[in-house]
């Protein structure tokens, strides 16, 4: 196996690990949180978006522009690492500005429509 092939295999394995971690985090986060029971999710309107820290605002703005997307698709627009965007997107999910859902093996994010 050439060095290039070996690196590609490592990359593929890392991506699979990342997807599994996303899936695991997603299951934890979609579990009902009793402390928030009855709360209404925060709508991500433009004024709320402007009050976000720079890194999360860039991620959320990108999601508004491109629509539902995977962390990898967002990272291609923001030119940041996929894992970094995955982290930012999951922060937005925890803030209830963004929803996370699965289609096949891929994890997608979209602006919360509640």
């Amino acid at each position, binding site marked *: 196996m050439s060095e290039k092939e070996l690196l590609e295999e490592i990359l593929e394995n890392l991506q699979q690990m990342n997807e599994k971690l996303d899936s695991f985090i997603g299951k934890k986060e979609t579990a009902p949180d009793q402390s928030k029971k009855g709360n209404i999710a925060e*709508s*991500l*309107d*433009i*004024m*709320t*978006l*402007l009050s976000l820290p*720079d890194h999360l*605002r*860039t991620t959320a*703005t990108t999601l*508004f*522009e491109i629509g539902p997307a995977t962390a990898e698709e967002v990272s291609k627009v923001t030119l940041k690492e996929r894992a970094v965007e995955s982290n930012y997107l999951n922060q937005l999910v925890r803030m209830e500005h963004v929803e996370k859902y699965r289609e096949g093996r891929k994890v997608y994010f979209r*602006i919360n*429509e*509640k």
Partner: protein
Amino acid sequence: MTFALAVHSSKGGTGKTSIAVNLAAAYALDGKNVCLLDVDIRGPSLCSIFKPDTYFWINDMLSGDREIKDTIHDVSERFGTKGKFFVGYSNPDINQIRELARKDRSWQSNALKNIIKGKKELSGKNIDVIIFDTSPGVEYESINAVAASDIVLIVHNSSIACHNCTDQLIKGIYSPLNKQCAIVDNMCHPNVLGPSEEKRFGINVIAQIPCMCNVATRNNEILSLTDPDHVFSKAICSMKNKIEDFYM
């Protein structure tokens, strides 16, 4: 590629609508396909200028009830422009304005999605330039349009209040949204304005249009179309060229 431009200002009465309408007409005369959208839904103006016969409004596009193609009207034949000239109107009915003023943050969040979706649809219809005529200051509809734009044309007058509020808008809205900006000094009084500037707040000043009574008295005309040799029309044409050279 479609280029979207929001004509915005910190204060009212700076001449945003005159500049938006004439700039749209200048692009259409030049052969560009243009769509002018009235997003000043709390104080609509374009209906008074174009007197359209319409059933669907920009309001319907923002609320997601209609696609943008259903809400825009082709006025190119009426004005004899080389490029296509579409206009989308806000509903001037006071009941509609009151209804929209009551909308919550969730509605505004969806309105932003719909305006971005509308921009993509116009891009698919070979529109070269979208111009948003916005309401002044920090209204949801205006800032949504700013967020959906590629450049913000800040229409400025020589008052201290306008100067200070523009500074706030740049720091609190345009910069956090990473928007390119250009300043247009409108209704300038040379004895108040002082020497002309190339940059203000670090932003290019691309036009300084003198205060002219006959621009106000001829407000039933689109001067770029009816009087291309007028000082105002020439300033609009020069502004159009600078936007093309520096930003598009």
